[in-house]
């Protein structure tokens, strides 16, 4: 359970989010225009940025967790793979998710390696494990990031625009995995992809003018969408089932 109280975030002396109050019991989809503060909210939940107010997970303030404890609690999947090391293989990359469980200074254990292997098989990318991550396609890279996050075995998984760079087919694959993860994790999905959002099927938090509105139902209808995005909608079409 994530509880956000009076959260205000500023960046470069500009207020991005103001007085956000939100209680996330289960899954959540965060929507809003570019630059509205969706990612900022996600980073605040991860405790990555300076913030006023309180964010607590399981009734404990996020600031009180050590980095290791936090890694076991939350995983954050960025929109795009950022990588300086151009040699690291998929297998090694996915194993990095086990850092928080590893004994300091020692190698990753066989158990860690098994978990990484199972994750690769679960996402059907184990045939790529020898490949350098930076040589993979965008869709495969997104799956690599999800695999790495899954080995963290965290309670909360935050996806930041997971389908931003993907074609419709890869979007469908990622969408199905993300929806499937709802069974075992608390999933927070940030996206612009309304098809994905509606398929994901959870409460919607819409961020506009530094404030947040929670929609528990009746969000994906032409009238609401047209009003919020200032674009005429005539029904959503893509089917990921």
């Amino acid at each position, binding site marked *: 359970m994530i509880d956000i109280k009076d959260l205000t975030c500023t960046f470069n002396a500009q207020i991005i989010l103001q007085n956000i109050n939100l209680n996330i019991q289960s899954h959540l989809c965060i929507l809003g225009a570019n630059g509205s503060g969706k990612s900022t909210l996600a980073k605040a939940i991860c405790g990555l940025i300076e913030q006023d107010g309180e964010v607590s997970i399981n009734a404990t303030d996020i600031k009180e967790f050590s*980095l290791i404890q*936090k890694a076991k609690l939350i995983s954050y999947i960025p929109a795009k793979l950022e990588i300086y*090391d151009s040699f*690291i293989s998929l297998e090694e990359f996915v194993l*990095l998710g086990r850092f928080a469980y590893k004994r300091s200074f020692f190698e990753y254990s066989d158990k860690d390696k098994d978990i990484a292997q199972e994750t690769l098989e679960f996402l059907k990318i184990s045939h790529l494990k020898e490949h350098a991550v930076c040589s993979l396609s965008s869709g495969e890279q997104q799956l690599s990031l999800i695999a790495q996050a899954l080995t963290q075995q965290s309670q909360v998984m935050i996806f930041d625009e997971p389908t931003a760079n993907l074609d419709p087919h890869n979007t469908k694959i990622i969408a199905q995995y993300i929806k499937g993860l709802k069974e075992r994790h608390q999933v927070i999905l940030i996206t612009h992809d309304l098809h994905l959002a509606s398929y994901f099927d959870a409460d919607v938090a819409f961020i506009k003018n530094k404030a947040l509105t929670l929609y528990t139902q009746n969000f994906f209808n032409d009238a609401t969408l047209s009003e919020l995005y200032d674009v005429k909608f005539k029904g959503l079409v893509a089917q990921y089932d």
Partner: protein
Amino acid sequence: MTKLFIWFALLGIVLTSPFIGAVNLELSEILNPESLANKIFFDLRIPRVLFAFFAGVILSLSGLLFQTLFRNALMTPYTLGISSGAVLGAGIAIKLGLGSLFFGIAAISVFGFLGAIFTVFLLIYLSQYLQNAQHTSLLLLGIALSLFYTSALMIVFYLGSAMQNDMLIRFTMGSLSVIGWTHPLMLGVISALLFLSVYLYRFELELLSISKSQASLKGVNTKKTTLTLLMISSLGIGTLVSISGPIGFIGLIVPHIVAKLHPSTVKNRIVKTALFGGFFLVLCDTITRALTTQSELPIGIVTALIGGPFFIYLIISKVK
């Protein structure tokens, strides 16, 4: 094949290096403990080879460390102005005519060390004001500092006497010439310390080579890791530069050469980078001694002359 050949060639040169120099040494003479050859071999040549090896380890590991921590292929203690800081410190010591300060440690060394350490602290302090600690900005800061130090050094030159300036020029060219075992042992301890800390932090470094925010989300204390490793590396660089003067190019090229020879994640390249750096500097030093006629060729010139073309060759070719 090429890989193995390069490693064996380097190893061969390192093993024969103590026998090469201005004076030819016969094995039978070396083994006679009373002979001059024995003294040259054990008090000059062996310490010098070891000193060069440890210096190479410190320079190349620091290069690998800086490049990984800041995720920038151009980051080295040299490009960040840390070496220039040491040179300026040494220059001031020479200008002030300071001989030995405490316990016979040369003032040049003490001031050189202080110059390097001061620069590191200055960089760490200034980097707080960089937007999101952008690493290109840090590199620019380092370059600006280098230029500033160079100008300050020009003032020292301008004010110095001919003799002082001669000492200073020799210092800036770098030299691995050591007498006795004090300096090699000192550098040995520091390079062991640096190697050990880099090796112990190899998993943190592997994560930091992906991205800083991801590393911290996986549980790495990025601030503590970065600061600890930077301090130890600066200690090594400060000590080295204060004894030998600045030696460029090794820290920049060795990590890249090893990455080309052994394309693998950073944690698998630590041992190889340290060894290659040590071997490579011994090779360069052997060349300076082999070419010696009246006086020795400065080491910095040789590292750049060999390293530069080899580096360019590696960038444009693919070593299988």
